[in-house]
């Protein structure tokens, strides 16, 4: 088996799932008078960065209403309650800080 003779070996990788492209929500035509949720995923001081984004909107685009919202638990858990709230009361969301 040694040397330059060709040998055949098996591939060690597992089987990936079939991926289907998911559609995303239509974008907004503009942000004036819209409510944008700033969603804190509660990881490594993400709150502080989102607060600065909130300040930016306040100073530069005051017509945009921003709502600071923490997820209900840790970022590892799905949070349908929060998503429902944003769907009912918001027009868009900025989530951070992801990793």
């Amino acid at each position, binding site marked *: 088996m040694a040397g330059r003779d060709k040998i055949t*070996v098996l591939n060690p990788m597992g089987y990936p799932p079939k991926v289907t492209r998911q559609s995303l929500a239509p974008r907004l035509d503009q942000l004036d008078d819209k409510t944008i949720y700033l969603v804190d995923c509660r990881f490594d001081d993400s709150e502080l960065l989102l607060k600065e984004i909130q300040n930016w909107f306040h100073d530069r685009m005051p017509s945009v209403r921003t709502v600071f919202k923490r*997820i209900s638990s840790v970022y590892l858990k799905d949070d349908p309650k929060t998503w429902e709230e944003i769907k009912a009361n918001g027009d868009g969301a900025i989530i951070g800080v992801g990793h």
Partner: protein
Amino acid sequence: MKIDHEYGVPTVAVHTAVFQWVVRSVARANGMPHMRQVFVPQPVIGKSPGELSAYVDGNDPITGRPVMQEVIEGLTAPFGAEELKETTFERSTPRWVEPASEEDLSRLFQENQWTDQLPIILPTEERVAAMLARTSRKPDEVVGHMRPTDFREYWEYTVEKVAVNAVMAGAKPEYLPVILALAASGVSARGSSTSSMATMAVVNGPIRNRLGMNCGTGAMAPYNHANATIGRAYGLLSQNLQGGSVPGHTYMGSQGNGYAYGSATFGENEERSPWEPFHVQHGFKPAESAVSVFTGCRATAFSLGLREKHWRDHVRNMLRGLDPRTPPTLLLDPLTARMFIDRGGFDTKEKLIAWIDDNARMPAGEFWDYQLAQNYIYPRATFGEEPWATRLNAAPNEPIQMFLRKDIHVVVVGGETNPYWRIMGCTYQKTVSVDEWK
């Protein structure tokens, strides 16, 4: 990004730049390659409001464009026709690698990140067949599913795929049932956490002796073929069967972890332990064989024996040195196990665990200020999860328990050359039957 896809809310995700490859590949794997992502510099943690304001006013370090311009465009710029098209991606893994010389294949395996960077045994058909002969399971039977982190997609694997990785690790065919049980756990030994986790695997029951596993002197060190190659196989199968463990893409451990080479794999020293074996504590009979998997191995504290006067203080100091998120598993040399009985009267593991639970304490203010407590425990406490909610109400100077009793464990291992012992900060995941994979 369920909020965008399932709830119909236009959303932008803000990440730090060091995660660009991993978050993009996660988005692709979840069918959302067109997800709107914006990047700021790393790190956010520890930065002042002024520094973070500069991030927001500055440019995305990946694209060079203003961060807030990208945020606004992410919410308002319509998707192109191609982005909106529903598409299915068929992905498959070939059974064979293109034939080549041994030298070229060894290089290919390394370049493809299919190894742990140490030499491997190439998985020829003959070697894999010999491995498969030691299980009654069919080669094409699905063993399980694994992924490197919660946000990624699960990959699937068969008995043959596990055997291929076992060959690569240098394992003997008779080890295969233990390796299959580890694969069946579905717990990855190559988690991608930035915290650089490793895994620990504890084998119990008659299989330990049948395979010649080491439970005594040097059990956790590279001095036993079964311990070493079963642990290595667990690591290799994890990285390959879950779809990779590549720094920057599918592995983000900032410092890495030497335990990952062998996944701290050993047998419990049942013969010299004064207590019930670990697998019996978890529902198995003594005559059954099983392997138990622990994740999050990072912090280790160690000591020598238990001194008569201050042993309680010494153990408390060790416990307080652990991070508050990761509970303790005591790894006790048989000599130390008996010292715990002599000093504290702990004639069962459960009694020792109860004492550890009651004595692992720190002032509440200190506890809740740990970044790991802030990230992973504080959010649960604020939304009422007990006992964390009650512990959150404690006064800052009040000592509170650091862990939950159910998460504290004891394993006996070592050769009685001295009563050295250690506490491994790690999280018990599950115990899997080995006998079912024979």
